[in-house]
């Protein structure tokens, strides 16, 4: 199976998978996120179009809020 790593979790990868697709798969609905793919930040305006490569290490950093 082709995979990527998201916050340390192994996740199935599909051809053409975007950052937005990763968020959907993970059910990451929080809005204040910093996203890095293989260590590089992907800006919010590119989440819909940026293709995540197979085997990528994706960090979806949820910033704190609330409380």
């Amino acid at each position, binding site marked *: 199976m082709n995979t990527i790593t998201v*916050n340390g979790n192994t996740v199935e990868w599909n051809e053409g998978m975007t950052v937005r697709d990763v968020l959907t798969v993970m059910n990451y609905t929080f809005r204040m996120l910093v996203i890095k793919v293989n260590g590089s930040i992907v800006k919010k305006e590119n989440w819909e179009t940026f293709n995540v490569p197979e085997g990528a290490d994706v960090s979806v*950093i949820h910033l704190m809020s609330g409380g």
Partner: protein
Amino acid sequence: MSVKELKEKHKLLKEMSYEPKELYRGYSDRVLYINLDDNTVKEKTVSEEVKKKFIGGKGYGLKLLWDATKPETKWNDNENEIIICPGPIAGITQYAGAGKSLVVSISPMTDIVIDSNVGGYFGPFLKFSGFDALEIQGKAKNDVVIVIDGINNKISIEEAPAEAIDSHILAEQLTEMYAESSDPRDMKNVSVVSAGHAAENTMIGMLNFSWYDIKRKLCRLKQAGRGGIGTILRDKKIKAIVAKVAGITQDPNHVADMEPIRERGARFAKEMKELDASQCRMKQEGTAHLVDIMNDYNLLPTHNFKYGSHKDADNIHSRVWNSKFTQGMNDGCWIGCTMNCCKGVDNFELKTGPYKGQKVTVDGPEYETAAGVGSNMGIFDPDAIIELNFYCDTYGIDTISYGTMMAFAMECYENGLITKEHTGGIDLKFGNIDAAFELIHQMARGEGFGKIVGLGVRGMKKYFAENYGADMNFMNDIGMENKGLEYSQYVSKESLAQQGGYAMTNKGPQHDEAWLIFMDMVNNQIPSFEDKAEALHYFPMFRTWFGLNGLCKLPWNDVEPEGNAETDEPAKVPEHLDNYVTIFNAVTGSNIDKHELIRQSERVYNFQKTFNIRRGYGLREHDAQPYRAAGPVTAEEYKSMEDFYDKKMKEDIGVDPAGKSVEEKIAITRKYREDRYEQLLDTVYHRRGWTKNGVPKIEYMKEIGMDLPEVIEVLSKHQ
């Protein structure tokens, strides 16, 4: 009875004039001391040494309380105090969230020090009247109102027999009574501190701090919710405390340098204007924006923290609150707050209780309330949540404790530990809205099973075991309290760091010390014990600092600057951290940096820790958590996420779950998680400069400059 008639019934017990004193760089260096035993009213001077070590806010409260009480003082002893202290930055109007007060006392729930932060106008008005803190000791014989008249520079204690007790009426009566005129611009210059009927009859009384909403033309209420301070207020027979001022000027604090404050305030206001709608939507939804997010991440407590999500959670989704809240209003609980997050529901018609049929404005619900009196009790009806919110507020009880207590009682009922025979016929199942209302009204009347629930989770456990033969071990596992205080509303099972963030707190499990669930459980940013310990050092210290200075924490990280993602430490929001350093220096004329900011907090945090130790608490045993906070207690909990827990068992523990019963798997998981928690305590204590028993080391107290003789005397017995 008209307000004029109410006032005519007042009997003046004491009046004292005082010399006006302008604030200088955020301080007056005076404390207003009142003793209700003999109606003493006097000023105390704050020394430079105290100012340097304790800063203000909670720091001053702890120092005054330490000096005024003995290690064995109980919450309802005359010598226990209620101390209200805003802090040096409080009262500026050029930066968001600068109107907070900290209230400090010995808690009826925990028997240790409680500190509770609150908005509203009272704290700034106390400062503008010429005092850094208000310290109240003793008990009145009959109900009194204390009036701090910052216009005529007079303090009075007045017997006040006829006003209402419940806050939504009392705040209006006293605002009208003490305002210079009925012009809203004068009404705005009065703030009232009060509790309510249920504060008299439960251990979870809270304080409402009012502010007059000019646009709505009514009093709004903000709450010092945690730890039962409203119960103490009513035990002292204080009906209310009133502060009034002539008005709010541009620079009442007489800060050292206004320009940097203005500049940072304008920068923050721009962030709110441009970014809030795409980030937390605080202006539209307040903290209630978190409800659906917590549900999505399995963190929303449902059915007494058994589960982290629910199929009906959509009914209390943030878009529902968005539609219920009146939009486009001034919703800042202090002037100049551009975050504007204390939302309100207007023209809400009450369906139950003594005010049934009345249309009221309800402040909130905030996230904690929506989860506490909602999902955690299995209630997903937004109107029921709004009404429970209203009655908690006006009756003067804490929505967080009420929700967690009720959820505990419901689980006890569903498990047969208590029956209808004990509840007075109430069918106390999860989701029973009628039961929730019946019990809250019983709390206000001091009657029936409501009075027993009002003891709190720890009190109920003892009562149920002694009187109904309930299983104490099971209740200890599911009773979501630590140190006697009820948990606030996040499921911590899958975040070890948050388990520490809750149960290692000084006052009990309230998330205002540390909220690490995303960093730990979702981001996997702090995987090692050392990483978690570093976070459990930095964030509690940083958050403590807000409470020293009269600041709200929400503007720190509920909107984040555009470039925050590219910074080295986005979780700390470096630009906002720099704002706070800059503002502290600009107000006080100091020259601290971000490291000294943490050190200021370390001094006060460890003083509070020492205070607890002085009272016979504050040790490792007191940081124990109920197992429900760490993992699945019951088979139904385990089975609800069986695949997840089985996978964890295999990968994390190294045990194959195949062929094992659910009970065996629960026991294996439990042993592993309890061991991990003990390892966490060891690592965090080491990072914080404490012994393995959770006691600050004397060498560390010397290092941070908090080796006061009275502190060393306490700690030296435990090294």
